């Protein structure tokens, strides 16, 4: 397929692709009220949104369907007092265990096209639904797989590392410096894995919050070494948005750090177009805090 016909195909796919492309500048985030807490009565409240400016809810609330709270012992808990407003969702987490908590979502999506009785079929959904809805050995099967992770970490009392146990899925952070141990002006190191292997050459972007009162975005880009390690120094105290994406083959259509969009209801039934080829992408998004020295 030439570039021109591919562009036409994209244009024909219409609504479903237009929204994510336009959403490329939007950033999804889960912003905790605190990342370092003390005492057994601690709670954090979390804002979750998809916005242009960091961290101002100026676009859409983040849907909380996929939000999971992982306690220091690895058990999962439900977000409490969850609500979704016009621009942001909020929920609370009671830190009833000492250690580090992980709050966020991690999910895989598969887009697929294949031919059945001379007709092009399309699929978009979870890997589980893919397995049950797309026939095994389908003709002309093309898949674009993506795995998106968006999380934040908070520690009550002494930080712990259980919640960072790699799952082997998508892009993951392995702390060298614990994300709740970051101090402005001090050099820190994170390690990234993609599907369980060192994410060599991964470009990781750090963008400070408070952009409304700054003339420039102030983003910092760092490349990972062969073992997936990223060395960085956050210049000032505050909250930072961290983002990294790996991509190969055909691109899935998705803004960084965003939850899967809902299927547009009542979208016109255009004739299905096959995917241009196979592809894979994984994204990592997190909110971290640099403490004042």
């Amino acid at each position, binding site marked *: 397929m030439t570039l021109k016909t591919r562009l036409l195909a994209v244009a024909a796919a219409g609504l479903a692709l237009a929204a994510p492309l336009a959403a490329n500048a939007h950033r999804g985030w889960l912003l905790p009220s605190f990342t370092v*807490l003390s005492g057994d009565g601690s709670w954090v409240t979390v804002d979750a949104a998809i916005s242009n400016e960091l961290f101002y809810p100026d676009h859409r609330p983040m849907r909380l369907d996929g939000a999971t709270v992982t306690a220091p012992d690895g058990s999962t808990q439900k977000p409490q007092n969850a609500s979704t407003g016009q621009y942001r969702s909020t929920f609370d987490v009671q830190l009833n265990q000492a250690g580090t908590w992980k709050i966020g979502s991690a999910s895989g999506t598969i887009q697929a096209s294949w031919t059945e009785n001379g007709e092009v079929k399309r699929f978009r959904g979870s890997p589980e639904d893919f397995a049950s809805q797309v026939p095994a050995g389908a003709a002309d099967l093309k898949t674009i797989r993506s795995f998106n992770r968006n999380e934040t970490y908070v520690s009550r009392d002494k930080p712990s590392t259980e919640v960072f146990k790699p799952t082997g899925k998508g892009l993951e952070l392995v702390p060298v410096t614990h994300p709740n141990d970051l101090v402005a002006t001090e050099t820190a190191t994170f390690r990234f894995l993609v599907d369980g292997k060192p994410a060599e050459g991964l470009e990781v972007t750090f963008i400070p919050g408070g952009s409304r009162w700054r003339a420039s975005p102030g983003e910092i880009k760092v490349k990972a070494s062969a073992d997936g390690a990223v060395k960085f120094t956050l210049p000032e105290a505050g909250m930072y948005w961290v983002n990294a994406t790996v991509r190969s083959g055909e691109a899935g259509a998705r803004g960084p750090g965003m939850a899967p969009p809902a299927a547009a209801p009542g979208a016109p039934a255009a004739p299905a177009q096959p995917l241009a080829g196979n592809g894979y992408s994984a994204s990592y998004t997190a909110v971290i805090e640099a403490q004042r020295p």
Partner: protein
Amino acid sequence: MKRSVSLLTFAGAAVGASPALAADLNVTVEIPRLSVAEYHRPYVSIWIETADASAAGTLAVWYDADSKEDHGTKWLKDMRQWWRKAGREMSFPADGVSGATRAPGPQKLVFSSAKGALKGLKPGQYTLVVEAAREVGGHEAVRVPFVWGKPGKPASAKGSAELGTVTVAVK
């Protein structure tokens, strides 16, 4: 029989490792009187830093353990340098370390070498850190170097907002 022998050995080693120090650490912390609309006494931690800036021990933590809200532990993290280096490893209230918040004025303290963080502290160069965090107020840490192991001249440093003069003397 074996047991008593090893205990004796251990006791002997301990004496050999740290020469008997009859020294005390005398510390004066001045808590400034502030003219602010809403004043709360600061939370204060007093601790010892080694040459590589890690914590060698906590001497005192003044906080509001009687607070209805989480027995005051909710705000311990606000003394954030101490919290990161030492506080989060401890449990509260901490025997011989926890204390009530103090009123403005000079607070004279004597820490004995026979107890707590000073017990077994090897002779050498250290820094005493006094870190204050005040509810609806500011945060400040004042550092005063001292040499542990022999009596020395008092040294002092002055805070600019949340702490006044901090004086340290090994006696």
